[in-house]
C-alpha cells in the first residue's frame, strides 16, 4: 500500500476535481432550471420526468454511451456530462419543492407591499427555500462522489480505480481502502456544505434556529 501512496493522492485529487467540476456545472444548470419550472409551472411535469428518467438509467450505461460519442470519448468529458445529467433529478426537484414550500401568504404579503417578482424571489422565496435546496445539494454531492467511482471503467483515474483493481485482484484491502477513502471524501464535502449552510440560512427559518435566535436576543 505504502508505495502506492502517491497514486492514492493522485486518485483522490482526480476524484475531488471531478466532483467539484460536476457540482459547479450542475448547480449552475439545475438551480436556474428548478427556479424556472417553479415559475412556469406547465414545464415542470416534463422537466421532472426527464430528470427521473436520467436518474433511472444505470450510471454505467450513461458513462458507456457518452464514451462512444465522438469528442467525448474516454475520460473526463464523458464522466462530467454523465454525472451532471445524473444530478439533475435531486437538484431540480429540491429547488422546485423548496420554492413551492414557501407559504403562499408570505409571498402574497410581499407582492401586496409592492415587491417586484425578482425582489420576491431573491428576498423571500430563495432564503426560505434554502434549507430544502441545500438538502438537495448535499444529497447530490454525496451521490456524485459515490457514482464517480464507476467512471474508472471509462478511463477516469480516480478512487474507483482502487476498487476496480481490488476486484480484478480479489484484494479486500484495496476494495475497503477505496470504499473508505470515497466515503471520507463524501462525508467531508457534506460536512463542509453543512458549515456553509449554517451561515447562509436565516435562524428564523428553522426550529433550532428559532431557539438559537432567542438566546441571542436576550
Amino acid at each position, binding site marked *: 500500500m505504502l508505495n502506492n501512496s502517491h497514486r492514492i493522492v493522485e486518485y483522490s485529487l482526480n476524484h475531488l476535481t471531478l466532483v467539484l467540476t460536476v457540482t459547479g456545472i450542475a448547480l449552475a444548470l439545475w438551480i436556474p432550471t428548478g427556479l424556472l419550472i417553479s415559475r412556469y409551472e406547465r414545464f415542470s411535469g416534463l422537466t421532472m420526468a426527464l430528470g427521473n428518467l436520467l436518474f433511472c438509467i444505470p450510471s454505467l450505461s450513461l458513462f458507456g454511451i457518452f464514451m462512444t460519442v465522438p469528442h467525448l470519448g474516454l475520460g473526463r468529458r464523458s464522466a462530467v456530462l454523465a454525472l451532471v445529467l445524473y444530478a439533475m433529478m435531486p437538484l431540480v426537484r429540491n429547488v422546485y419543492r423548496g420554492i413551492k414550500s414557501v407559504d403562499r401568504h408570505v409571498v402574497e404579503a410581499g407582492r401586496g407591499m*409592492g415587491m417586484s417578482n425578482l425582489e420576491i424571489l431573491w428576498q423571500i422565496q430563495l432564503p426560505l427555500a434554502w434549507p430544502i435546496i441545500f438538502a438537495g445539494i448535499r444529497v447530490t454531492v454525496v451521490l456524485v462522489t459515490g457514482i464517480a467511482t464507476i467512471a474508472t471503467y471509462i478511463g477516469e483515474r480516480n478512487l474507483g480505480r482502487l476498487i476496480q483493481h481490488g476486484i480484478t485482484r480479489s484484494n479486500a484491502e484495496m476494495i475497503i481502502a477505496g470504499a473508505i477513502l470515497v466515503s471520507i471524501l463524501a462525508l467531508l464535502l457534506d460536512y463542509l456544505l453543512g458549515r456553509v449552510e449554517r451561515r447562509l440560512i436565516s435562524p428564523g427559518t428553522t426550529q433550532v434556529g428559532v431557539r438559537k435566535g432567542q438566546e441571542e*436576543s436576550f
Partner: protein
Amino acid sequence: MIKLERLSKIFPEAERPAVEELSLEVDQGDICVFVGPSGCGKTTVLKMINRLIEPTAGNIFIEEENIAGTDPVLLRRKIGYVIQQIGLFPHRTVFENIALVPRLLHWSHQAIEERVQVLLNLIGLDPQEVYYKYPGQLSGGEMQRIGVARALAADPPIMLMDEPFGAVDPIIRHHLQEEFLRIQQEMKKTIIFVTHDINEAVKMGDRIAIMNQGRLVQYGEPADILARPGSRFVAEILGDDRTMKLLELVRVETLMTPLDKCSEKQSGGFQDAELQAGRESVQNGYSWLETQKPLKAALEIMMRNNLDQVAVCREDNVVGILGWKDITSYISNLERGGRL
C-alpha cells in the same frame, strides 16, 4: 378617493362569481368597513384594489385614475396591505419585517430606525423586547400587530386591512381600535377594513359595506344601517341588539337639551341652584354624565337609578339635560326615516 365601478370577479371553474357587480365609493380620509359571512368576497375585493387579483369586469379608480393602467408594483407601494393570514417573513427579524417597504423606497437608515420605533410603540409592543426576534418567536396577536405596523411603515395614503385585529384578545383589540382611531384623526388615511365583528365595524367605520355572496347588500353610515337595515339578512348580521349598538354610537351631547333652552318643566327634576352649581352638588343629589359618553351610558344610569332624565356635564358644569323621551323619539325618528 377610491371608487369601485360594477366590479366582478369570477374565478376560473367557480360556480358563482366571488364578487358581482359591486359599486361603491370611499371618500378621502374615511374608513370603510366590509362585513359579511365567510366566503362572501371581502378579501377578493381588497386584492382587486391592489391588483393581486385582476377583476373579470368593472373598474377601480383611485384619485380618478383607473388603476388598470398603472404599474402594479408602484401602485402597491402607495397602498398599505395587512394580509388576513398575517404573512410575516419568517426569515426576517421584526425590525426587518417592518423596515421592508421603507427599504424598497430607499429611505435612509436612520429614518427607518426611527420609524420602526414609533410604529412599535404605537402598536403597544416594547421595541427593546421584540426588535431582534423572529416571527416564529411571537404570539399570534403580536405577529398580527407587527403585520399592521409593517403595512403602516412607509406611511401610505391608502390602507387595505384584512381582519387586522382578528387574532388579538378583546382587551388589546379594544386598545388597538382606540389607538388606531386616534392616529387616524391625524393621518386621515383612506382605509378599507375587513372584519367579521359587527361591533368592530360599527366602531371603526365611517361607512359600512355589508356583503353577501359576492354582492353588496347595503352601504351606508353605521347609524343609518343600524336604524334601517334594508333586509332580514342585514338585520341578522346586526344582531338582536342593534338599537343598543346605535345608542353606543351617538354621544349624549348630540341629543341633550342645552341648559339655556330648558323649559321650567323640563328641568323640573332639578333645582335651579343645583343646576348652576358645580359637579359636586349634582353628583350628590342627582345623576349626571359627560357630554362625550354614548347614549347607552345615559340609559344605563337612568335604568339603574330609576330616573327619566339625567344631567349632562362638561368640565364640572352642567350644560344640558337628557331625557328618556329624547332617546326613544330619536330612535323612532330614525326608523321612520327608513320606512319613508
